[in-house]
C-alpha cells in the first residue's frame, strides 16, 4: 500500500509532529532566543497539542484534506506570533489543494506541499534567502517535485522533501535575515539557524517517518 497515503497517515503525521515539537520545544525556544524573542518552541508546542486534541473530534470518514483543514484553523487560533498565521495558511492551502481525495499519491503530495509553500509566501512575502521557514519549504517542494517526476513513491517524495528541508534549515545559518524579528539584528543574525525553518524541517521529517512506518507495515 506504499502507492498512496490516506487519512490514517495524515492523522499519524500530526500526532508525530506534536511529539517531535514537544521534544524540540526547548531547542526551538533557544534558537528563537538567539535571533528572535524566544517563544517559537512554546508557540508550536501549544499549537500542535491543540491540533492533536481536535483530531479525535474528526469523524472516521475524515479525508486527509479534512485533517489539514482542522489543523489549519487550530494553529491559526492557538499559535499566535508570526508562525501561527503562516503555518495555518500552509495547512489551509494544502487542504484546498488535495480537496476531497481519500488518498494522496505522489503527485497529490507535491501539489499539497507546493500549495502550502505558496500560502506562506502569500502571507509573509518572504523570498528564498530571507532566512525564514521558506528556506526550508522551497527546497523541499523542489526536491519533492523532482522525486515525483522520477516516479518516486509518496514515502520517497516525503523523504526527498525532508532531506531538502533539513539542508535548507541548516543553510539559513550563514544568512542575514530580511523578514521576521531576526531582520532587526542585521549582521548579528549570522551564524544562527532560523527557528521556523528548523520547525518546518522537523514537520516534514515527521511526515516521512510515519509514511515509512506505514509503507513498511
Amino acid at each position, binding site marked *: 500500500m506504499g502507492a498512496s497515503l490516506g487519512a490514517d497517515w495524515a492523522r499519524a503525521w500530526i500526532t508525530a509532529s506534536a511529539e517531535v515539537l514537544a521534544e524540540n520545544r526547548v531547542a526551538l525556544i533557544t534558537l528563537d532566543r538567539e535571533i528572535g524573542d524566544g517563544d517559537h518552541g512554546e508557540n508550536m508546542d501549544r499549537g500542535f497539542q491543540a491540533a492533536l486534541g481536535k483530531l479525535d473530534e474528526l469523524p472516521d470518514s475524515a479525508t486527509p484534506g479534512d485533517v489539514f483543514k482542522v489543523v489549519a484553523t487550530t494553529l*491559526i487560533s492557538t499559535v*499566535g506570533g*508570526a508562525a501561527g498565521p*503562516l503555518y495555518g495558511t500552509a495547512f489551509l492551502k494544502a487542504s484546498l489543494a488535495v480537496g476531497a481525495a481519500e488518498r494522496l499519491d505522489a503527485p497529490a503530495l507535491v501539489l499539497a506541499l507546493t500549495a502550502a509553500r505558496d500560502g506562506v509566501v502569500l502571507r509573509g512575502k518572504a523570498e528564498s534567502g530571507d532566512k525564514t521557514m521558506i528556506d526550508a519549504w522551497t527546497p523541499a517542494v523542489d526536491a519533492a517535485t523532482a522525486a515525483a517526476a522520477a516516479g518516486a513513491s509518496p514515502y520517497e517524495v516525503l523523504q526527498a522533501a525532508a532531506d531538502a528541508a533539513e539542508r535548507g534549515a541548516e543553510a539559513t545559518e550563514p544568512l542575514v535575515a530580511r523578514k521576521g524579528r531576526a531582520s532587526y*539584528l542585521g549582521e548579528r543574525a549570522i551564524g544562527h539557524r532560523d527557528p521556523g525553518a528548523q520547525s518546518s524541517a522537523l514537520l516534514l521529517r515527521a511526515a516521512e517517518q510515519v509514511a515509512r512506518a506505514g509503507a513498511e507495515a
Partner: protein
Amino acid sequence: MKKLINDPKNVVTEAVGGFAIAHSDIVRAELDPVYVVRSDAPRAGKVGIVSGGGSGHEPLHAGFVGYGMLDAAVPGPVFTSPTPDPIVAATKAVDGGAGVLHIVKNYTGDVLNFETAADLAAADGIEVASVIVDDDVAVKDSLYTAGRRGVAGTVLVEKIAGAAAERGDDLAAVAAIATKVNSRVRTMGVALTACVVPHAGEPSFTLADDEIEIGIGIHGEPGRERIKLEPADSIVDRLLGAVLEDMPFAAGEEALLLVNGMGGTPQVELYIVYRRAAEVLAERGVTVTRSLVGNFTTSLEMQGVSISVLKLDDELTSLWDAPVHTAALRWGR
C-alpha cells in the same frame, strides 16, 4: 528565574483577572478568549479602538483601556501576539456601529494576526480600519528588514486617537489622526539588563556588567549595537541624536517628550534621563510643551529606557490634553 507568579502558563490570565478586579470601575475582562474591554462598551455611534499584542509590556495595552483612549485591549501570551479569535471577539464587543480601528505594532506576528482578525470581523459586517505603528528608529526601514518596530510611541498614538474617537470623529478621521501621530513620533531605546520570559526561564540575551544594548526592542530581542556602559548623559545623547536625525526639528517647533522605563528602571534614573533629554532639545531650539515620564511600554523587569519625541501641533496638543481615564493614564476627570 525569580518571579512573583504561580504556574507560568497562567501568568496572563491571572494578571488580567487581577487587573479587571482592581479596575472594575472602568473595565471588565473576558477570559475565553482573553481581552479587556471598557465596562460601558459598546458605545453607540462612537468609533471603537482596539489594540493588543504580546503581554509583558504592561501597562500597554490593557492599562490604556477606558474613557478617551482604548475601548479594548487584546493581550497575547508573553511577547507573543494574540491569535485572531480574541481580536475578533474584542472588535465585536466594541463595535458601536461606527466601525473599529485596530492599532497594531509593526511585528510580523501582530500584523498577520490582526490582518486575519480584520478579515473575519469584516466578514461579519464590521467596518475595520488598521493603523500600523512603527516608531522605532533603531531599525533601518528598508526592503531588508520587516520594517521598523512599534514601541513606546504606541501609547501616544492610542491616547490621541482615543481622544479623537471620544469627541466623535468618524472611522476615517480617527485612522487619519492615528496615522498622523505615528508619522510624527520617533523612539529609540537602551537596555542595561535583559528580561526573563516566564515560560522560557532564561534571559533572552545576556549583557556583561559593563555592557549595554543600544536600540533595544521590547520583546527581549537583542538591540542593534552593544557598547560599554556610559554616563547617562552620553547615552541620552546617542538615543536622542538618532531620533532627531531621523526627524529633524525646526527651531521653535513644539514637542512632547516621553521618557519610558522598560519596567525595572528606578524612577530617579528616568528623571536623570529626562533632564538631559530636555536640555538637549532646548539647546536645539525645540520647545517641550508636554512631557510623560514613567513605565508605559515595558519589557517585563528589563532595566533600560526609551526616549520618544512627538512633533506637536495645536490639534495633537489639544487631543493630548483631552480628558482620559484609564488605569495607567488619567487626567481631566
